[in-house]
């Protein structure tokens, strides 16, 4: 058995080394390309999903969100809840948000949007919106009469460029009129415009907690939601469990639970596209290898007959061709792996610009291993079938060439 393998390997290595190098190199290159193709699309998709996830955490939900108990509109005693949550192990910081319906006016443009209040000091520790100021400044605790708005709220002078209804291209320093549902109407100076590229966030309007208290006319200790940033090295699930064990009565959801349905459908369609590419790539790999080995074995028919005649078992001969395709496959996969690493490095430096943000490649080790294993199985099949066809022929027929 071991001898058989040794002889197969011996023959395979020499046949590879001493037969047409161009052919072999081309085949290796094709496999490398197929492997790259199998991984590339899935990693772009992986990158997009990863981007959506990151954006969701950084700009939209943070790690964990606390919502009022079922059928209740507000979280009461918000300040004490925030301090309580901040003390829970695994929690980095919490930021409370309060929403009040309003309509915003600038010149002839009017849009209806809730205005959200937060404490800028808390918010900075929980989301990264403050890092994404396109122009102007983020809010501070003391800010009155000032508002920051998302890029889509600001919009463009040319309305055809807008995704949503907007204020028609307002700039930092412009004044807008906000009419709240409680009847208060007030002019605000735009302090800054943020652009996170997460469309949910970029269609929001924020004021400081203090300003909201002024609009309401009373000290505010209610909120609609608490965004909670967890500490690095913890999982949201763990921290959620801890929070529940600390007796938080409100609804606690990890960002995945909260966002859940939001992306499921697009992820699913991504995965269908991805699987089709995977299968097509595999079929190409099998066919290419099959043709190459077919030509090779037909070309070597006489040689295969000779080997059998002098006493080399057909199984050893078949094995030697399988080893050849395996070597080709493994070399191809290795080169493909290097190509992908290069692409990853490249796209990290120069991300692909999508409307939703900049996508880098995100390669899951699982998919990489899966593709490599599938390609190796393809190599084995593609080596085995043609080789066994020729090796099972009558010796004399084969020797005649």
């Amino acid at each position: 058995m071991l001898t058989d393998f040794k002889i197969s390997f011996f023959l395979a290595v020499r046949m590879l080394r001493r037969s047409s190098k161009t052919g072999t190199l081309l085949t290796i290159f094709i496999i490398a390309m197929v492997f790259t193709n199998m991984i590339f699309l899935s990693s772009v998709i992986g990158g997009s999903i990863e981007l959506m996830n990151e954006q969701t955490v950084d700009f939209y939900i943070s790690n964990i969100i606390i919502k009022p108990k079922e059928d209740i509109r507000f979280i009461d005693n918000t300040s004490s809840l925030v301090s309580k949550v901040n003390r829970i192990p695994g929690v980095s910081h919490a930021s409370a948000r309060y929403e009040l319906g309003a309509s915003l006016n600038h010149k002839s443009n009017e849009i209806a949007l809730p205005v959200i209040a937060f404490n800028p000091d808390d918010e900075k520790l929980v989301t990264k919106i403050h890092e994404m100021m396109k122009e102007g400044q983020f809010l501070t605790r003391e800010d009155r009469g000032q508002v920051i708005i998302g890029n889509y709220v600001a919009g463009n002078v040319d309305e055809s460029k807008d995704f949503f209804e907007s204020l028609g291209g307002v700039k930092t320093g412009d004044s807008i009129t906000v009419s709240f549902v409680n009847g208060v109407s007030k002019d605000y100076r735009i302090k800054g415009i943020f652009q996170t590229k997460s469309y949910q966030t970029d269609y929001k309007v924020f004021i400081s907690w203090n300003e909201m208290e002024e609009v309401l006319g009373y000290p505010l200790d209610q909120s609609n939601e608490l965004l909670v940033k967890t500490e690095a090295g913890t999982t949201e699930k763990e921290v959620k469990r801890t929070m529940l064990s600390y007796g938080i009565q409100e609804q606690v959801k990890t960002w995945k639970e909260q966002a859940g349905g939001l992306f499921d459908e697009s992820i699913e369609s991504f995965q269908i596209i991805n699987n089709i590419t995977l299968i097509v790539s595999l079929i190409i790999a099998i066919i290419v290898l099959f043709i190459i080995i077919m030509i090779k074995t037909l070309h070597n028919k006489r040689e295969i007959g000779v080997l059998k005649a002098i006493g080399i078992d057909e199984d050893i001969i078949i094995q030697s061709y399988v080893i050849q395709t395996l070597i080709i496959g493994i070399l191809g996969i290795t080169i493909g792996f290097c190509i992908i690493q290069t692409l990853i490095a490249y796209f990290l430096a120069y991300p692909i610009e999508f409307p939703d943000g900049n996508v880098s490649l995100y390669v899951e080790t699982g998919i990489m291993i899966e593709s490599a294993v599938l390609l190796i199985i393809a190599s084995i099949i593609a080596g085995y079938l043609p080789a066994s066809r020729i090796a099972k022929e009558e010796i004399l027929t084969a020797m005649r060439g």
Partner: protein
Amino acid sequence: MAVISVKDLYRVYKLGKVDVHALNGVTLDITEGEFVGIMGPSGSGKSTLLYQMSLLDRPTSGLVTIQGKNVGGLTDHQRTRFRLNHCGYVFQDYALVPELTTEENVYLLPMAQGKPDTESIDTAREILGKVGLSNRLSHLPRELSGGEQQRVAIARAMVNKPDIIFADEPCANLDSVNSKRILELFKELNQENGQTIVMISHEDEDIEYFDRVIRIFDGKNRER
């Protein structure tokens, strides 16, 4: 004692609807240590007979016995193993493996028997020395002359010290000087090691080397 015994051997090739009767009832014995020549006109069935005796083909009917064993009853794998361990082959067109060097072509066989690498290589080199190719060890077949290639083939046929060597017109592609050299090599090996050699030839001057000549006409032997 008969090392090869052939009885009522028939081989019919099917060529479309036509049956070609290549062997028509050959019966013969070959004694151990004999250097036998098979001669006869072209198309008479010499090669076909040799293939049946050397386990490269199966007869349509009849019996081939080697060293008392009915080799017709062996499976293909067993026959391959038998060829590796008991037979050596030399063909008219050398039939070397083009991707293997001189010495690789030769030491492949002991290695396939499971002998250690060093032993296999040493034996191969020793035999290649005997056939005068010590300075051609790492040449590929295409880098060798016809005579040299045939000497590699002979070395390969010898390397496992087979009981029988089968040669199908080994000198047909060689000039007279090289032919003589090859025949003398065979004779030497036969006398030194007592190996049985069965060789097809159609050169009358080869007869002097043979212990005995079997003549084939129309698929039948005229000997005896």
